[in-house]
């Protein structure tokens, strides 16, 4: 038994989060049986826009699907080998390879809902990472030519945003809606769009608010658990069920945990954050950290993939304020949506590593961290870009850090034993003793 310093208790809404996630994959698989539509695209796509086609339009976002595959190591290997046999290189995005593999072997990661990989009716994507559009171009080809629309969002960092850049994106969104009407044969409902945009504001705001609560000592949430919670925003951030879950269930519960001093890790002595996606098949490394009384309070990745942030009056980071604007038509909705998404923290560091370093150093200070783990993630070039420079900046800021190599979606490129040894060395260097040694 590990010594306990703080009270702990399971999250009451944990099972609800699990059910929402399951329902999402079930709905996608069964959409056609209900007369609905299926679309595929990235977790960062503007999912509020296809919402205007009706309430019976269901999505499958690629990154969370790739992570789901990765978590099931046997299935992941089957997918990866199928992708490699088809001639794709092993150093491509591992989520993408898992997704393609799932198409190639025609197996769904949720066999209880569909044994075959459910084919989407159309692809709705955006493009900021070098793989995004290519991912779905190939997916479309592998599935016999699914119609695809992709929006280029790589207009530079939010701090340099101009009307011209917004217009560039909004113009593509308008074109996209015309395209959606054409390929689906449905009329577009702007009221549904406006509702979805408002849901997205709430989802992104409240997820950030939940992460902000982790500034508390002890932290009410640990990152391993947060992965099962933030995922809802990556599945469908514009859905009412996501926004309601974050605002009405998870946020109040976590706030209550802070008020009562409920810890995620009962023996919390040390706080770290990670960086980029974890090696999904090896989440037990977080449990290993607990042997040192170490809690990972999250990361820029878990905070900023879906959560939106702003600097508050006191200079600290807090959830981005939900715009107090009246949205009356399609154009206003699209402009608000474009502006909102372009401030996404995880989009900023595609432009310069300094932007990411600054945010990470801010988190390390405001969340009172003892160290940072940096995942040199061979499975994601986009989010690993500049990570060596991040390390130098974090070092310079005097924050202990530990880089490790791995791959979020391909377990063949992660060495658990060596990583644990590296964790041991890091913990010794910051004077943390293993509670169970020998």
């Amino acid at each position, binding site marked *: 038994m590990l010594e306990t310093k703080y009270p702990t208790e399971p999250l009451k809404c944990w099972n609800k989060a699990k059910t929402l996630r399951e329902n999402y994959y079930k709905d996608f698989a069964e959409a056609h049986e209900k007369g609905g539509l299926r679309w595929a695209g990235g977790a960062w796509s503007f999912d509020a826009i296809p919402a205007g086609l009706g309430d019976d339009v269901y999505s499958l976002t690629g990154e969370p699907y790739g992570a789901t595959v990765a978590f099931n190591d046997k299935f992941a290997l089957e997918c990866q080998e199928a992708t490699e046999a088809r001639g794709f290189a092993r150093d491509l995005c591992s989520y993408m390879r898992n997704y393609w593999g799932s198409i190639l072997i025609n197996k769904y990661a949720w066999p209880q809902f569909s044994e075959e990989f459910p084919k989407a009716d159309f692809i709705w994507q955006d493009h900021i990472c070098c793989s995004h559009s290519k991912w779905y171009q190939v997916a479309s080809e592998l599935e016999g030519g699914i119609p695809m629309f992709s929006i280029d969002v790589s207009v530079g960092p939010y701090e340099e945003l101009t009307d011209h850049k917004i217009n560039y994106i909004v113009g593509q969104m308008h074109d996209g809606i015309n395209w959606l009407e054409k390929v689906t044969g449905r009329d577009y409902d702007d009221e549904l769009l406006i509702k979805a945009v408002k849901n997205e504001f709430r989802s992104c705001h409240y997820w950030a608010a939940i992460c902000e609560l982790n500034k508390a000592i002890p932290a009410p949430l640990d990152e391993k658990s947060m992965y099962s919670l933030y995922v809802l925003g990556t599945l469908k951030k514009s859905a009412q069920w996501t926004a309601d879950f974050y605002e009405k269930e998870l946020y109040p519960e976590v706030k209550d945990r802070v008020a009562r001093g409920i810890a995620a890790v009962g023996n919390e002595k040390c706080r770290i954050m990670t960086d980029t996606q974890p090696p999904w098949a090896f989440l037990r490394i977080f449990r290993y950290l607990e042997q040192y009384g170490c809690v990972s309070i999250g990361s820029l990745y878990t905070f900023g993939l879906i959560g939106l942030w702003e600097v508050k009056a006191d200079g600290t980071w807090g959830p981005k304020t939900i715009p107090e604007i009246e949205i009356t038509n399609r154009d206003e909705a699209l402009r608000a949506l474009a502006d909102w998404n372009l401030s996404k923290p995880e989009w900023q560091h595609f432009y310069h590593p300094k932007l990411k370093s600054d945010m990470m150093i801010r988190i390390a200070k405001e969340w009172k961290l003892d160290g940072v783990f940096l995942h040199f993630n061979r499975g994601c070039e986009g989010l690993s870009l500049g990570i*060596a420079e991040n*390390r130098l900046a974090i*070092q310079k800021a005097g924050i*202990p*850090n530990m*880089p490790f*190599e791995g791959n979020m979606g391909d377990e063949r490129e992660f*060495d658990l034993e*060596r990583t644990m*040894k*590296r964790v*041991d*060395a*890091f913990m*010794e*260097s910051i004077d943390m003793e293993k509670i169970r*040694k*020998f």
Partner: protein
Amino acid sequence: MITVGLDAGSKNTKVCIFDDKVLSTASVLSGFDQEESAEQVLNSALDKAGIKREEIKHITVTGAGMDAIKFADTNITTITADARGTYFIFPSVRTIVDIGAEEGRVVKIDEHGKVKDFGINEKCAAGAGAFIEAMSRALEVEIEEMGELSLKSTKQIPMNAQCTIFAESEVVSLIHQKTNKEDIIRAVHDAIADRNTSMLRQIGIEKDISLIGGMAKNIGFVEAMNRNLGFDLLVPKDVVAPEYVSALGAALIAQDKIRG
């Protein structure tokens, strides 16, 4: 107070017996059963020092195989052992390069010998001793002769391959081109030095720097590192040989454990 530091390395298991000073050291191939090898090398070091097993107050183990050594009292990571052992020998050292058979490590320490930062090359044999072994086989030169031979080189040849497999192909090509063995060996040493100085730069170069581990016994490699960095590294000689520094560190940490 006699303590023992055991370094269960991936290739060799080293032991250091300490009591105010180093009493003896010994080394053996780690083999398949690391615990048996550790027992064997410990007995050998005890014999050399004329000490009985019962006189040992504490055994601390480090190294890649440390979890297999169940008879040890405590364990410690190689990073911490390197820091402790090197600081004991050279208190002026702020950066350590430890290159063993299969792993290269760099450690930054403060003025009290405490670890500030570290880096580990655990995935590329081209930066470790295994590379020299592979090349000595390809060149049909005894591994012990590699260092001296490279000092006779008259020509610098760049080696571009980034991994042992491709580097070996490059060496074979050089052999076919009738390149002097001495020049090829120097190129091999330069390649390993390149990889390790690159890792060193990731944590920041701060003098003095010490080179430890089995590779520090290779004079040609030490020269390559010195050339690459533009100054001389400190290589342990008097207190213990460079491959025993981790074991020494473990023995010193064992002393700390007894003293509380």
